[in-house]
């Protein structure tokens, strides 16, 4: 393959579009496969779907990452059993949790791009942001599910931590684990040429 395909900015835009689309599908597939882990009764399960979106944010930047996250949230709402008790909980449970994954692009800007540290930091930070969004939704809209005597914030905190903490730890471990294999794919020069 020649290098001329990378010159035209329009082509680069098409490339970015297809990459976002395929990675959103990839994240969704991971979400489906993650069902091998036990899931929670009122929605939410241990999943590593933030990994592809973070890799996408690494390659294509902030806007692409956030866009991909929002698209993932939409697909997740349409395809994977949707429910909401309030119109705002749709945003707090589907769009914002996935949208914040794109913010990881900022950490690659600040912490550099050649180590696993920015990946781990961004997994932890965006994971916590996602957790906070679910937590806020729990406090605001799911108070009536809390057992009697338990404060709502404690209920929401434990309920969401129960699957979010394993998700964050798992995603961080996995990124560190596959970094050696992943890195050659992320650099433009090698991508799609020598690897396959």
């Amino acid at each position, binding site marked *: 393959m020649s290098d001329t*395909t990378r010159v035209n900015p329009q082509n680069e835009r098409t490339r970015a579009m*297809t990459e976002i689309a395929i990675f959103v599908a990839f994240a969704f597939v991971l979400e489906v496969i993650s069902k091998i882990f036990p899931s929670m009764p009122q929605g939410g399960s241990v999943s590593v779907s933030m990994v592809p979106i973070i890799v996408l944010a690494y390659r294509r930047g902030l806007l692409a990452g956030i866009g991909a996250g929002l698209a993932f949230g939409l697909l997740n709402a349409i395809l994977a059993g949707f429910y909401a*008790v309030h119109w705002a909980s749709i945003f707090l449970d589907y769009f914002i949790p996935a949208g914040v994954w794109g913010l990881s692009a900022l950490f690659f800007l600040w912490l550099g791009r050649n180590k696993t540290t920015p990946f781990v930091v961004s997994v932890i930070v965006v994971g916590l942001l996602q957790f906070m969004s679910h937590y806020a939704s729990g406090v605001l809209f799911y108070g009536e599910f809390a057992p009697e005597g338990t404060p709502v914030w404690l209920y929401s905190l434990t309920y969401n931590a129960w699957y979010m903490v394993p998700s964050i730890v798992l995603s961080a471990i996995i990124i560190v684990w596959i970094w050696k294999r992943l890195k050659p794919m992320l650099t433009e020069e090698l991508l799609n040429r020598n690897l396959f």
Partner: protein
Amino acid sequence: MKNIVIGRFVPGKGFLYRMDPRTKIISLVLLMASAFVIRNFTAMFMAIGFMALLLVAGRINIFRVLSGLRPLMYLLAFTFIFQLLFNTQGDLVVAWTLHYSPLNILMVTALVMLWFFTKRHVKFKFFFFLATLVGAVALVANLRLGPAFATGTLDIYESALTTGFFIVMRLMIIVTLSTVLTLTTKPTDLNLGLESVMSPLKVFRIRTEEMAMIISISLRYIPTLLDEANKIMLAQASRGVDFSEGKFKAKIMQIVSLLVPMFIISFKRSDELANAMEARSFVPGQPRTRLHQLTWGLADTAALVVSLLALTAVITTRVVM
């Protein structure tokens, strides 16, 4: 893996299938909003009647809608029971004395054992579970076998019943509505409709057509990638990896072994797709022609008017009453 339903579109006839996706999306939003607004019984029963009418007139298989509700069943039952036990406002409706005597406990244990061993042969597991639960409570409340070593009370208040009823019905209506939308609309049509509904956002310089394009490509490639993932899993299963069993650590290893090939496949697929699109002179942001045009019919106007009427009616009843 096989039993994961994607998109849940089921081909069929009926007016809902012929309707414009734009109408269906807007009506869905309007009707959902009405469901959130409802606070009194007459309106709720009318809403339930409306839903039944919609399902019958749209010739939708009720069992498919029920299967959409299935993951919610335990949540709904849980909510309702919590309301019954802990909501203590309004008048007292039921006041039962519970007798905990050895024989009673034995009976309840027998009932639970019966449930446990027969549940795999019963078709409607959830209702069986509920029936067992109610049966156990009724047993303890009404039978007085032998001396009781402890007694308790079961008080159910009016507000518990009404609040529980409203929460459960509202959730059921919302889930039914969204199930009806995904049942009767192809994912591609849904995406076209979304693009069209989102198009006012162009004012804020958001590229809606590119977003719609991205979502439709994702929708198209989810089954493909699932298939690829399945192939990788089969290939690794043939080498001795066990995907269905294993402890937490084993499952992590399975995910890791899946991820690297999946990354390679995704990069490759997106590169090929971009090449194919460029070869067909795709230019982002340029106007494109469509094979299937959306058409707006009389039924669509009628549906919009009906859902707008429903929303206004619900809001007025809430304000007036």
